[in-house]
């Protein structure tokens, strides 16, 4: 039986983080499909998904062999590094200090770069395009795998978190195939801000548990931590806001 006080943040974090990553990967896959057709795009994507599946199949069973407290501590510290890094960047973007992520601009830039690369290499142009799709899906997929393992492994929630990530993939790809253009309307910084909040909260929670802290309220403490990180992120964005701030 699922304990929803832990499962809901885990599934939500996996879903939202995956939306961000899949949108980024989809932009590159679309560049490849636009320049060289869907064949290299689909082949590159399929090969990357097979590589990611192999990584999960090989590394997944090893997680069961790691003592729970050590697993919580290691994952907790990695989550702190990853989550606070995301939250920091999202706060700086919300304040207008860093420019917002623009999928349309990335699409244009990647199209120009891949076109130049394809022109340089007269032979095997589809191969180069396929490799570009492969790398994009592999690199963004690695982040998704880490987030799913990080929010799911400590409480036996790997399957629910994986389903959250899978739902995000299906949703983004479905919308992307219908729209057939970069998904620039996705409020990426808001999602990144929310995911950064949740991952930072999980990071403190798991690190504490790994060190032997018995948090008051058990899993409900996660929600309190998330609220604190949310306020801290918003306040820090407000403190450094530029006149033409990017907003969330």
């Amino acid at each position, binding site marked *: 039986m699922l304990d929803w006080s832990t499962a809901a943040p885990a599934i939500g974090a996996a879903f939202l983080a995956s939306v961000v990553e899949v949108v980024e990967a989809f932009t590159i896959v679309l560049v490849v499909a636009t320049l060289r057709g869907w064949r290299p795009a689909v082949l590159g994507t399929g090969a990357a998904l097979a590589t990611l599946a192999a990584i999960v199949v090989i590394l997944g069973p090893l997680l069961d062999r790691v003592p729970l407290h050590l697993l919580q501590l290691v994952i907790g*510290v*990695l989550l*702190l*590094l*990853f989550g*606070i*890094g995301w*939250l*920091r*960047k999202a*706060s*700086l973007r919300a*304040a207008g*200090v*860093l420019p917002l992520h623009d999928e349309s601009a990335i699409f244009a830039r990647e199209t120009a770069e891949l076109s130049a690369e394809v022109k340089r290499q007269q032979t095997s142009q589809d191969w180069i395009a396929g*490799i570009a799709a*492969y*790398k994009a899906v*592999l*690199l963004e997929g*690695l*982040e998704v795998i*880490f987030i799913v393992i990080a929010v799911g492994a400590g409480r036996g929630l790997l399957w629910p978190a994986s389903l959250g990530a899978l739902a995000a993939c299906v949703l983004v790809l479905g919308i992307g195939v219908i729209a057939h253009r970069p998904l620039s309307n996705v409020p990426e910084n808001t999602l990144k801000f929310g995911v950064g909040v949740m991952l*930072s909260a999980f*990071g*403190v929670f798991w*690190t*504490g548990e790994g*060190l*032997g*802290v*018995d*948090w*008051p309220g058990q899993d409900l403490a996660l929600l309190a*931590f998330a609220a*604190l*990180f949310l306020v*801290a*992120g918003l*306040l*820090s*964005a407000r*403190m*450094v806001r530029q006149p033409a701030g990017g907003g969330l």
Partner: protein
Amino acid sequence: MSVLKDVLSELFSMFVSDARLTAAILVLVLIAAALIDATALPPLAGGGVLLLGSIVILVASVRRAARARARSPRK
């Protein structure tokens, strides 16, 4: 090899987006661990230091990055 290099670079940048931020978080975890394991304080005190320290590090890191950006906007 380029793919492998990119994968390793991506994995590194996932956890080390800013060297000072990474160092500060690792030092904070060590302090919390020392408070829990090496003092008579209840473990929750170490947990509190970890939570509040993380928040202070976040705010300080955002402010530092904004100041650095203001000094050299193209950085």
